């Protein structure tokens, strides 16, 4: 049960092997994805035909590496652009929301807080279709009235950014508000007392205190945006982010290029996650 209580060695062995099996189960799919990125074969499957870098650097069809696949490289750029927009927007709004919920008193605060949490319990695909339906309604309305076609309201990157922003902001708000709750407000009073204006106090004292949470929320937003599929699927136009492109490719049939992209994704996400852990360590002190 716990280390201080003796346990039947047989039960203990079974338990330990279960834990080991579990972690194998966790690691297995990712391992095969990574390994087959280096298999010198047209299909990501056994037998092993030998090690190759061709799925990264190959230049000739059908041995075209990921760095020379125009469509995939382009969609990585699109994903990065979307992720950056979502990240900046959601930490900005999230920081403002954190101040609103921690520093202001107003009617219906509890109600508004629950409303703010709702995007987390709405399935992503529904967020996607509702925004699609509404933006289409507005775009048609504007077109019928004025004859102008608002491109941004048709499926495309603007809608993808808005769709992802609509639920990632909740997460950013929660992360930043949790940190603001821990803030010792006498630090702000000390700043005022030493001659700072309220804005200067927030800029020089409160925001630096929030920085680890803001960076953490920004990285979480980047990761969530990069790997989002459900909401994006309903709102995407001609410029597809990476997950959509990979999904389309996967439906056409899998090639080791997909393994190579996946491995790059894993490395990228892990690097970002490490940065985040680093900043969260800073947050503790």
């Amino acid at each position, binding site marked *: 049960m716990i280390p201080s209580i003796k346990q039947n060695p047989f039960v203990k062995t079974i338990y330990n092997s279960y834990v080991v099996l579990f972690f194998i189960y966790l690691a297995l799919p990712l391992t095969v994805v990574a390994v087959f990125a280096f298999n010198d074969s047209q299909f990501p499957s056994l037998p092993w035909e030998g090690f190759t870098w061709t799925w990264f650097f190959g230049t000739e069809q059908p041995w075209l590496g990921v760095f020379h696949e125009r469509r995939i490289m382009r969609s990585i750029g699109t994903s990065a652009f979307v992720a950056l927009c979502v990240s900046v927007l959601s930490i900005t709004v999230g920081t403002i929301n954190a101040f609103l919920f921690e520093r202001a008193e107003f009617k219906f605060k509890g109600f508004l807080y629950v409303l703010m949490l709702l995007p987390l319990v709405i399935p992503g695909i529904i967020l996607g279709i509702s925004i699609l339906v509404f933006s289409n309604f507005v775009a048609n309305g504007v077109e019928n009235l004025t004859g102008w076609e608002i491109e941004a309201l048709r499926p495309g990157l603007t809608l993808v950014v808005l769709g992802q922003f609509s639920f990632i902001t909740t997460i950013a708000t929660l992360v930043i508000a949790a940190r603001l709750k821990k803030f*010792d407000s*006498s*630090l702000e*009073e*000390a*700043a*005022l*007392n*030493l*001659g*700072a*204006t*309220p804005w*200067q106090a927030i800029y*020089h*004292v409160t925001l*630096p*205190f929030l*920085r680890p949470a803001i960076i953490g929320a920004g990285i979480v937003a980047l990761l969530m945006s990069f790997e989002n599929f459900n909401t994006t699927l309903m709102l995407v136009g001609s410029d597809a982010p990476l997950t959509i492109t990979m999904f389309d490719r996967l439906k056409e049939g899998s090639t080791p290029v997909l393994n190579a992209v996946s491995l790059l994704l894993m490395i990228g996400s892990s690097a970002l996650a490490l940065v985040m852990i680093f900043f969260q360590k800073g947050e503790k*002190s």
Partner: protein
Amino acid sequence: MNENASDLDCIKVNKKFGDFTAVNNVSFSVPKGSFFSILGPSGCGKTTLLRMVAGFIEPSAGDILIKGKSVVNEPPNKRPVNMVFQHLALFPMMNIYENIAFGLKRRGEDSATIKQKVGEVLERVGLPGVEERQADQLSGGQKQRIAIARCMVLDPDVLLLDEPLGALDLKLREHMKVELKKLQSEFNTTFIYITHDQSEALVMSDQVAVMNEGIFEQVGTSRELYYNPKTAFVAGFVGESNQWSGIVETVKKDSVKIRTNDGFTLIAQTNGEVIKKGQNVKAFVRPESVLLGLKANDIAKMENKIKGVVGNVLFNGANSRVLVRNPKDGAEIDVAIPQTGEFASLNKGQEIHIGWQHDQATCFTVKEDIQQ
């Protein structure tokens, strides 16, 4: 306009939170360059008063003048007062230099001047060269001095201190008391110090105000408060005392005879109050004012005499006490043991004689029973 050279004047300052009056028409003046303490139990309104001076709370009524100029309409960042916070509030995201330079930068001073001033103030608080350190790399006493330096570098008219020693351990606290007093006289700035710890207030202050339930009970020097308390609260709160509640039996020119509910009678002096027969009073006797005698003869001259029994002996070096059981009401009387060696071997259960003169017991009228 005001030439009386006081740094801070509070005139009928009042603060209500709903129905609760936290500070009730308090008026006082603090002369320039003095160390002024406000002493009171928690919840007495001293923090509210201090925060009104700093500008974090707006008074419901009354006026606050700093160097003769009203500041009640000034926001906290415009007032010429600075504050050392209870937990110091050193900015954790800045190093020591940035902490001390914070206020100077807000004033827009140029960086060469700032650098020079920070260096000077660190020198004065005895911590030269710590500019690059982080606050958490310093000891409790050093942080204390940085918090003071951060304020003093701005050359405030008044420095407010909100129980800054509360978080320190006992030994360091004793040390910092002396240190703070030294810093105050060196900077020659008016310090307003609030605390619930009487020894902090008594040791450091030129003037102490004892505050209770939103009013100032008495303002005076430490000596006055200790030897000449004006109210029952002050007598009970400042220093230690044996206390009796009772009814006045007879009144003489400078003394009264009191009978307690348990039937013990004692003679005490009054403190300028007009006391009539039959009034409820409370009498206070300091442990060190009680004379101890092994024989009845030793205390023959005393007006109050008790033949008692030694209860517990509380050994504490120079502050050793003996609790003497009074057979007349069964209560224990706290008596300081003189360091003459004569009483070095008191034993529990031993017979002992104690006594005091009427002018070592002071009594005050009370409306109802004051809870202590």
